[in-house]
């Protein structure tokens, strides 16, 4: 999929006098899920907004391979984003939502890809042509993932994607996330859920008051207990 790393280099972000991020440096690798953890106000969402190029860092820079990421950059099409809100139009059907985004991304002959994507997320049946507002939250989130994957991005950003999902939905999402990692995508997951992070992450970054309190990789799967210990250690030790 991609061999380029996403480098966050000495990134800072201030809002007026409030410092949301301070000299954050992290390296995100392809084929890896990085869980970004931290308490409320730690700067996780700010970091994600900068990674998705919706926000400009006050200091430092982001590079994807050799290219620098800036708002308005064409690299934006390399990003797929799934947030806690689904980001789909309720008055359009699942298929129409994907058709719209396929056109916005300039995907040629997207009809087969849309059908395949709807099938993959379990909306390939009669539901594909129902308005998205008639869907349950879990189904909307499935559609959101389909929207994020349709243009085959190299970078996938998730912001609390399972916050409104039931355990079955959360498990499905975790499996999809692992599948994307195994397909070689670079995956960043912002979450408060340490157990969910332990299920999927190979790399853990803990933010505290806008700074990196811990940056740890593991060749083995983290256990939920490991994750809790790491998190506590990061917050207490910082």
């Amino acid at each position, binding site marked *: 999929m991609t061999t380029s790393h996403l480098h966050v280099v000495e990134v800072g972000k201030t809002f007026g006098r409030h410092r949301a991020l301070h000299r954050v440096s992290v390296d995100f690798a392809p084929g890896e899920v990085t869980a970004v953890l931290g308490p409320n106000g730690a700067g996780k969402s700010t970091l994600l907004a900068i990674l998705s190029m*919706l926000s*400009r860092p006050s200091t430092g820079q982001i590079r994807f391979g050799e290219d620098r990421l800036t708002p308005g950059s064409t690299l934006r099409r390399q990003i797929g984003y799934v947030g806690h809100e689904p980001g789909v*139009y309720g*008055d359009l059907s699942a298929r129409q939502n994907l058709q719209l985004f396929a056109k916005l991304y300039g995907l040629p002959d997207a009809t087969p890809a849309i059908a395949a994507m709807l099938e993959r997320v379990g909306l390939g049946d009669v539901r594909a042509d129902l308005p998205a507002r008639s869907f349950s939250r879990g189904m909307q989130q499935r559609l959101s993932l389909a929207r994020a994957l349709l243009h085959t991005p190299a970078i996938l950003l998730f912001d609390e994607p399972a916050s409104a999902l039931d355990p079955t939905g959360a498990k499905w999402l975790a499996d999809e996330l692992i599948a994307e990692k195994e397909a070689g995508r670079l995956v960043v997951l912002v979450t408060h859920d340490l157990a969910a992070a332990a299920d999927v992450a190979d790399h853990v970054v803990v933010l505290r008051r806008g700074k990196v309190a811990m940056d740890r990789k593991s060749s083995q799967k983290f256990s939920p207990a490991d994750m809790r210990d790491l998190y506590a250690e990061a917050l207490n030790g910082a």
Partner: protein
Amino acid sequence: MAPSFLRQTLLIAGKDLRIEGRSREVLYTMGFSAALVVLVFSFSFANATDAAQGPLTAAGVLWASTLLTGTVALARVLDRERENETIRALLLSPISRGAIYLGKLIATATLMFTVELLLVVLAGGLFSANVFAHLPYLLAVLALGTLGFSAAGVVFSAALLRSKSREALLGALLFPIVIPVLLAASRATACLFDPLSPDLNPAKFWTLFLVTTDVIYILAGLWMFEPVVAGD
């Protein structure tokens, strides 16, 4: 390959109009409110049916009701992007922010213009104005006035996207800005409705004034939309 700027703009406008075509909430709400405003004015003004004064009053009533109800269209077209955070999905897509702005502008202006067509007929009937005397000219003035109003309104509506009291704030912030557009539009419309003055020169002057303000507002909107909508 990203679509052309024009296609991006039309995709955004088409999407908004398609959604409105399904729900028709803006058209119904705005149309009903605007018709009510015109009706109330027609009962309030003693000269409403006066052959000389009625048509001039109609022009003011037409634009006053457009001003009061236009904010419904402005608020709703942007509000739909707040629901489900679709604005983020749009901003993440590789399309130009300028295309999002112009698409929203076209969608809003189209909805307003549709309602204004109904209002023209209603105001013409209630205020004894011959709205068909200079119909193409009148349609051009309506379109230009609506475009100027929407050009400023889309920017303010986007700026207030995450504000809790956006409906109240939108009017308070927008109305002073669009005064030049409304004055020019109502003067041009009054000239076109005036049965005693066949001279269209004043209408031409105000139409040129509208074209100028529209260009200024649209250019300013294109420039301001990105920082405003990003909220950075």
